[in-house]
């Protein structure tokens, strides 16, 4: 993955910029020592690394504004960073950029239960938002797998989803307002505890813009009352097609489970070896979770069981107690760890129309044989968001490149069948150069026009999302003179 070469003019300003930043931030909030900058050299797409020129850790919106104003004046790019858990390289720096980490801004500003909203600083982790409201019986719905570590700032940047968004929606559906700082240091307020924007839906375009339009420092989030209970059930089938058809029938029947997770045989095996969850030996496995009172759960599961039986399941297992529920989820939740045990892996994130599932799984497997690489599939079946995990050996020369080529073929396949490159991880650098497969020039131009308005100098996270050849003219704005 190519990144733009660092600009010598910017690199020459390192000391000067560090001094200016120390005038507006506490000493320990400006990091310039090479050894310490290594901590910011990559995110969870760890195959790509590059320490930034500087890193800053502001503690307030005003400090963020000061940092951006100074960097803007110096013509130095800024890469915003939440918790650094991006799987797409969203927080990967260039050598001539400043990392702006929001980790020190993690306070809950207000929890308003009557109006069902919480206002937080965006460095707060996803799970700790729920942590702040659960005693009152509430939760924050989007639940990316990294929720223990990932920050709301990154969730907003990538419009993160999770296993339960089939029912509750992704970040954009749960975000009501933000305080955001533009690249020139201007602070703006959008939305709030009330619903829906008065003018253009700027909030809608900011969410998912991968830190390219502004740095979001505070957010108003929708919180929901916790359901009375939840219970998963496990279903085993002897083919992917049948499992896919069962998913479609459940949805068509008007039942809306909170989650429908799908695992294929390679994934089931790996999880079983790793976590010993007691999964049946089968080709495809579904985990379906429903919510409500005891009677409501039983009613829904009975209907789902009825539908599943029409598809000749090898096994239907309803959790009898919390312990069994835990075991049903155990394998699924350890899928990534299990794959990591076998080898290095790359996790893809394409989305496809649900009815294309069997076809796409077959093609993924056939492509894997061509490339000579193993793949396991685990994904959110209800909404067609796939997560093929491609196994490779990072120490074997050429294997990463082969894996990337295979991954690119899978994502192109997703687009071909009417889907998209990324369902919840974001484009970052990982899928940046594949964007031409999904969008024509006019489509890309319209998106870049939005960045032109928010960040005319293209200094915020500029080398992401758009193929470098598409954004080159815009990024070539000369470094501002003193």
């Amino acid at each position, binding site marked *: 993955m190519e990144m733009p070469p660092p600009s010598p003019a910017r690199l020459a300003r390192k000391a000067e910029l560090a001094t200016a930043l120390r005038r507006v931030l506490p000493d320990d909030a400006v990091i310039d020592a090479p050894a310490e900058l290594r901590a910011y050299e990559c995110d969870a797409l760890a195959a790509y690394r590059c320490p930034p020129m500087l890193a800053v850790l502001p503690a307030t919106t005003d400090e963020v504004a000061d940092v951006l104003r100074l960097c803007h004046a110096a013509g130095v790019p800024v890469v915003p960073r939440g918790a650094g858990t991006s799987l797409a390289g969203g927080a990967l720096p260039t050598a001539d950029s400043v990392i702006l980490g929001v980790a020190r801004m993690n306070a809950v500003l207000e929890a308003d239960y009557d109006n069902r909203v919480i206002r937080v600083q965006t460095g707060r982790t996803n799970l700790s938002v729920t942590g702040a409201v659960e005693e009152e019986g509430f939760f924050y719905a989007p639940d990316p797998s990294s929720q223990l570590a990932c920050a709301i700032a990154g969730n907003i940047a*990538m419009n993160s989803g999770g296993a339960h968004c089939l029912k509750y929606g992704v970040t954009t559906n749960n975000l009501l307002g933000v305080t955001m700082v533009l690249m020139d240091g201007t602070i*703006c307020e959008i939305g709030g505890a009330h619903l829906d924007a008065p003018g253009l839906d700027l909030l809608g375009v900011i969410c998912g813009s991968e830190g390219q339009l502004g740095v979001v420092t505070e957010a108003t989030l929708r919180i929901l009352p916790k359901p009375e209970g939840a219970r998963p059930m496990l279903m085993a089938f002897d083919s992917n097609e049948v499992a896919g058809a069962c998913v479609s029938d459940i949805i068509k029947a008007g039942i809306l489970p909170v989650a429908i997770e799908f695992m294929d045989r390679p994934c089931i095996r790996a999880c079983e070896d790793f976590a010993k969850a007691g999964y049946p030996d089968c080709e495809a496995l579904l985990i379906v979770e429903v919510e409500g009172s005891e009677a409501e759960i039983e009613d829904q599961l009975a209907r789902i069981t009825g539908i599943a039986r029409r598809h000749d399941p090898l096994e239907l297992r309803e959790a009898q107690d919390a312990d069994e529920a835990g075991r049903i989820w155990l394998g699924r939740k350890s899928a990534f760890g299990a794959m990591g045990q076998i080898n290095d892996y790359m996790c893809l994130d394409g989305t496809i129309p649900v*009815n294309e599932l069997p076809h796409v799984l077959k093609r993924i497997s056939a492509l894997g044989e061509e490339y000579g690489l193993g793949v396991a599939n685990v994904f959110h079946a209800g909404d*067609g968001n796939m997560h093929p995990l491609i196994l490779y050996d990072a120490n074997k020369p050429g294997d990463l490149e082969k894996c990337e080529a295979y991954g690119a073929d899978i994502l192109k396949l997703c687009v071909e069948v009417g889907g998209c490159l990324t*369902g919840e991880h974001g*484009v970052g650098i990982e899928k940046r150069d594949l964007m031409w497969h999904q969008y024509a020039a006019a*489509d890309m131009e319209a998106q870049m026009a939005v960045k*032109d308005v*928010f960040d005319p100098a293209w200094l915020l996270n500029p080398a992401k999302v758009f193929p470098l050849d598409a954004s080159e003219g815009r990024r070539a704005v000369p470094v501002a003179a003193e």
Partner: protein
Amino acid sequence: MRAETEAELAEMIVGAEGPLRICGGGTRDVGRPVDGAVLQTGGLSGISLYEPGALTMVAEAGTPLAEIEAALAAEGQRLAFEPGDWRGLLGRAGESTIGGVVATNVSGPRRIQAGACRDFMLGVRFVDGAGQVVKNGGRVMKNVTGYDLVKLMCGARGTLGVLSQVSFKVLAMPEAEMTLTCEGQDAKAAVTTLCAALKTPFDVTGAAYLDAGATGGVARTQVRIEGLEASVRYRAGRLRDGVLAGFELVEGAASGDLWREVRDVTPFAGREGAVWRVSVKPTDGPVLTDALATLGLDHAAVHDWGGGLVWLLVDGSGDGGADVIRQQTAALGGHATLIRGSERLRADVPVFEPENAVLARMTAGLKAKFDPRGILNPGLMG
């Protein structure tokens, strides 16, 4: 002008020599009056794809809403964001189109639980002011590939581009619905009750209050529950045993009628006056109406969305209450839109909430990028 295809639409926009007034079904004439040649999109019609098992539909922008709703109903599905029919309220005839619904981001009572129109939109195709055909999003339920221009277009009222095709998520129609109602509460007590109901785990899908001025008799508080039959019965019972003690149970078609009334704001249809739509946080709904009364602005109010969406019927002469409504709304943190008013009133006072300087700069910047000649519904949004 009436476009029958996307290519024709693009040609008409390229060939336009002056401002264009974009018109779907012409049922939602909201905004500053636009002086321009009418460009009709009703010819771009038809459902191009419907997959009930994937909960997705793709339709040309000019497709009548009624056609879409009928196709969905045949499969036991619906538009969960419950778009209102404002023909009665605005005194308009014609057929509402899906493009018009999306362009105005119309969402009904279920918005508090299911989300707004914008939350269900999966993809758009549109023609920008330069005549370029642009697509964004797609037809899958999770998509973060590039910027979300789908949301930007939803609610932009044709000022950034003219929609040619939309794709959206649909949901199953519930097996049952019930409404719990109570009469005679004042706004504050009603909204306190609504908030309490919305805090329960019983998945309330509608929470509204119609004051005496709106009902023309006694004020009514109403809470809706939907879902599987047994579950609805269970939840209604739990609510009546708890925060909705003393509420009456309304079932079936009668329950549906109660919500169509709120959705379409029928209490204000055929009545004289200007109509405002204000969005504040729910607990501020009664604070707003109390303040307006104290300041001497006579009004009738329908509170939807747990109390936070306030429809106000006021005297339409003078500034139609604009000053005092805007002042009070701004103080609470929210926004007010003049939904119905004479052409004179809509030209005299800002129809939409004036934006702060920074957002106004962003809006103007986007308008200049997407419609460089300034010909798409110029001035409509202020």
